[in-house]
């Protein structure tokens, strides 16, 4: 029986809101334009991530694709990161194009602005998905066939929507309470759908790479490609190992010094040494295997935190207020036909803004704090709400809102 690794990397950078004060509101509308040295400078961050992660990782991935004709992977790249690459890191953007040009990298569909619009404004959500599709076609000449929602936030409704929209597959977290006795290492079908297939992340194996790889107190440290391939090959009945993770795992979350790049480079060699092994993209694995069962997920499941729900983005009152306030402006914003205003409104929908306001683990100074460009969740909230007030101001200047 054959076993495939389905490697899927998610590439994303938000447009961070600068330290935007109430004295800016009604004066400057440049929410996303921090000075270069500022923590919230999008340009500086894209330079740093391109240099530490995108360029070195893509160089290795390209080598691997050239060296191993069997090596394949899937990626999703948000519209907000694509725009920033176009503007500030064209070399990194070119390296992504080179990968896709090999014909063995599949691009996955999502919202252009990495938003949670599905839960707030369905029409807007569909618009953002269409924008992303157009952008991917323009830059990569590919039309995505498989959908992933922001933060892998998934439920039955989303699967129903994606099925009707014509996607052949959709991605979700392989969360134990949902899977119950089942294994994530097969193809599934969502309940209440006709054609679409469901691929569920094997979070244990994925997190071995994405989170635990560089942790020297982990009992399995150091993790080698050989050992990892051995685990997969030894794991009994399985057709596909869904390794889903942030692209920035390579070089940014796991630094070069951890040996993460060596691991990546050796993975095809070690895995393909074994009998019946392969790499598949998300579409290929859906074509190759029949679903083994239907999966019912009435509640929204994401790929974040131990709760695997939306609480990292919407769990406290600040987050709830901020996102509701923004979507409340929706009709008025869209009615203006002012491209700049609409685009600013969409950039403010990016889920990262709400993640920065997360207070769940704030006192532990954990992963949430690590990814935030603000000193604390409250500063993130204040900057965001001041930008919101300026949006209000701009709308009322146009007579669109009083």
């Amino acid at each position, binding site marked *: 029986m054959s076993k495939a690794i389905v490697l899927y990397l998610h590439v994303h950078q938000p447009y961070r809101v600068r330290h935007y*004060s*109430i*004295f800016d*509101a*009604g*004066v400057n509308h440049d929410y996303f334009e921090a000075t270069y040295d500022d923590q919230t400078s999008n340009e500086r961050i894209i330079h740093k991530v391109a240099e530490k992660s995108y360029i070195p990782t893509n160089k290795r991935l390209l080598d691997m694709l050239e060296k191993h004709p069997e090596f394949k992977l899937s990626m999703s790249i948000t519209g907000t990161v694509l725009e920033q690459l176009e503007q500030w890191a064209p070399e990194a953007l070119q390296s992504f194009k080179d990968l896709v040009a090999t014909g063995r990298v599949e691009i996955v569909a999502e919202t252009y602005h990495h938003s949670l619009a599905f839960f707030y404004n369905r029409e807007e959500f569909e618009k953002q998905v269409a924008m992303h599709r157009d952008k991917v076609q323009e830059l990569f000449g590919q039309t995505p066939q498989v959908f992933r929602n922001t933060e892998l936030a998934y439920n039955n409704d989303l699967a129903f929507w994606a099925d009707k929209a014509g996607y052949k597959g959709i991605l979700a977290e392989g969360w134990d309470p949902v899977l119950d006795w089942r294994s994530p290492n097969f193809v599934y079908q969502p309940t209440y759908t006709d054609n679409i297939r469901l691929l569920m992340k094997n979070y244990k194996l994925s997190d071995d790479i994405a989170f635990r790889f560089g942790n020297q107190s982990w009992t399995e440290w150091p993790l080698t490609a050989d050992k990892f391939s051995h685990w997969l090959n030894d794991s009994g009945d399985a057709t596909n190992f869904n390794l889903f993770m942030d692209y920035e795992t390579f070089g940014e979350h796991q630094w070069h010094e951890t040996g993460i790049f060596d691991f990546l480079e050796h993975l095809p060699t070690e895995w393909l040494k074994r009998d019946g092994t392969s790499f598949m993209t998300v579409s290929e694995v859906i074509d190759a295997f029949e679903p083994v069962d239907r999966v019912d997920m009435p509640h929204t499941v994401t790929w974040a935190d131990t709760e695997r729900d939306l609480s990292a983005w919407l769990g*406290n*009152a*600040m987050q*709830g*207020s*901020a996102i509701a*306030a923004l979507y409340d402006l929706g009709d008025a914003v869209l009615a203006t036909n002012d491209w700049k205003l609409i685009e600013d409104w969409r950039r403010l929908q990016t889920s990262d803004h709400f993640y920065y306001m997360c*207070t769940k683990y704030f006192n532990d100074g954990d992963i949430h704090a690590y990814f935030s460009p603000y000193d*604390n969740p*409250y500063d993130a*909230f*204040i900057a965001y*709400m*001041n930008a*919101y*007030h*300026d949006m*209000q*101001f701009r709308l*009322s*200047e146009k007579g669109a809102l*009083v």
Partner: protein
Amino acid sequence: MKVLMLGWELPPHNSGGLGVACYQLCKSLAKKDIDIEFILPYSEAHDAPFMAITAAHPQGAKIVLTDSGAYDSYKYVFEDGREEWMDIYGQQQVFEHAVARLAAEREYDVVHAHDWLTFRAGLRAKQIRNVPLILHVHSVERDRAGGKDGNPLVREIEETSMLMADRILAVSQLTKDAIVRDYAIPEDKIEVVHNSIDHSVIKELLDLGQENAYHYLTHMKARGYRVVANIGRLTVQKGLTNLLHAAKEVVARAPKTIFLISGSGEQYYELINLSAELGIAKNVIFTGFQRGKTWRDSYMIADLFVMPSVSEPFGITPLESIGFGTPTLISKQSGVAEILHSTLKVDFWDVNEMANKIVSAVKYPELRRELQIDAERELSRMSWDHAADKVHAVYGQHLQGAAA
């Protein structure tokens, strides 16, 4: 007459009203030919040509810095390059020893100490020089603890010092009552000296013109919104959680009301969170600490200023607000309520009544105008010179006593 004045802060390095009150009182006292040496616990430049300002350093310390306000930690840089951080209790003791060294070297007629942080130093100076000690109480520990007992170490310092002092000045009858209640000090040992306001500071800032830095709020006001402001430290004592609960009721009845909360303090994050939990995050704006023109603009952009303090020994902010043209709603539990009459007043705990009055004020310009005109008349009669007269008289009484 030479006065050794012990204080904890002076503007512009102040975190609140204490520094302003000290500065203004000294300025008026200086007009009476009183020679003041003001001792501070940190080294910074101050613009106060009417008195001498000395930083009380511990031995060997070259420079003492505060990281922002005067109530945070202090950094000592010693002559040998060593650096050391100290918290406020440690600093209070260091201050005492430094003042003792100064007192041993120089002659003074009176020691005048402002609030508990300087009280031990005041006692030492009195012992060394054998001169009268006047304690000036701007707040007692229970006020600062928002009605709870507060820190027992601080209470001990307050109680002991007040028993041993020659005279106590209280910034209000409310504060005098608190001293009698909390420390059983005889009433006739305590003199009420209300704070006042320096009209020239207001005028200087008004002279900067009408242009307001809150463009967003200016714009929204032109579209029928009204602004309700609070300016001050964000601490339990200031009663801002009650104001936010009232704000929720106000917004339900007058949705075009924006609350402007200008200041910093340990309740900052708690209040941001509370406004979100109450569902009024869109109507509450937090500006952080402001000074100078933007501080003025916070008052001037407001249609109503609210001081909802749980306990406010005096409370200068309503007077500033009136000076900048904005009528006020103040808690009855404030010293300033004893001298300001043309204002709306409410018990700090009465959230519904607070909401009721705010709604009326934002809805009726006539009410705001009437309050403001009358309050300006009251304000024009207030002066720090009156306070200085009283203090001067107290000095005189004790100097005669000492001479006899």
